[in-house]
């Protein structure tokens, strides 16, 4: 499937791309556009103004996608808290990882294009998922 989002990806879009790849569409094709009118007709837009998969009711796009696709995995909802804080920074959740992740993503957007940011962040989110999966199983910080 084809997915479209705004160019210059930051935390929410990078996390959504990972979420789509790992839990919704194993062979996604991502298109980065400058404006909503540039979204290809056959693409599903996300994290853009005026589309369904965007910010709604205080949720960031990552949370919206979890709701729309009925993904109830508690590990994904833990990651959603981190993404929410890194993206919106409204202190709705206690997610100390958010500040660091925000800086890493902003730095990445300064040194490479969107494809590279997704290449680098895919294993980062894989690792984040594994860490919080173990934390949830052990009910304490793993390792």
């Amino acid at each position: 499937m084809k997915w479209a989002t705004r160019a210059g990806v930051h935390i929410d879009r990078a996390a959504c791309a990972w979420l789509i790849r790992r839990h919704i569409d194993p062979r996604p094709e991502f298109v980065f556009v400058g404006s909503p009118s540039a979204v290809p007709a056959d693409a599903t837009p996300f994290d853009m103004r005026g589309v369904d998969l965007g910010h709604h009711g205080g949720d960031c796009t990552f949370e919206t996608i979890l709701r729309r696709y009925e993904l109830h995995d508690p590990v994904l909802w833990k990651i959603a808290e981190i993404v929410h804080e890194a993206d919106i920074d409204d202190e709705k959740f206690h997610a100390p990882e958010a500040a660091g992740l925000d800086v890493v993503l902003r730095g990445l957007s300064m040194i490479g294009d969107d494809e590279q940011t997704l290449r680098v962040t895919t294993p980062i989110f894989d690792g984040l998922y594994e860490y919080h999966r173990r934390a949830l199983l052990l009910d304490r910080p793993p390792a």
Partner: protein
Amino acid sequence: MTGWVLLAYRIPREPSRPRIAVWRKFERLGVARLGDGLVALPADARTREQFDWIAEEIVEAEGSATVWLASPAVEEQEQQIATGMRQARAAEYQAVIDEAVAAGGGTDTERARVLRRLRAELHRIGRRDFFPPAQRDQARAAVENLATAGNPAPAESLAPADGEHA
């Protein structure tokens, strides 16, 4: 200055919940209020995105909102707005300085608690501080002073005398 991002909006008075939520977001972002339903921030990737999402939120609340990139016709106008924003941040930093100084005489536990809280507050103010006032560095120093106050600072007595390692 690379320009400004403006958000022009109208939002219904009732229900008040979405209106208050938007107002809180403006406070948190430290916007300059240019008039009724018109707010501004220096434009960068983050401020543009934040305004985009607030605009979306306003539209969802049955209001209307448009986001613009702008530059002032006269430079003095810009300086006036920047000065207003700098003064607003200066007052916030000053409140942090006052709290830090007041906590200086407390017990170790109290100081540690105030230190944590004020570091978070400094982070929040820093996020909306686009034209840093002199009080910023003073506030940082006053807060970090809480981390060392109460412990004798060994640095000076242990430092080698001038020239020893020349």
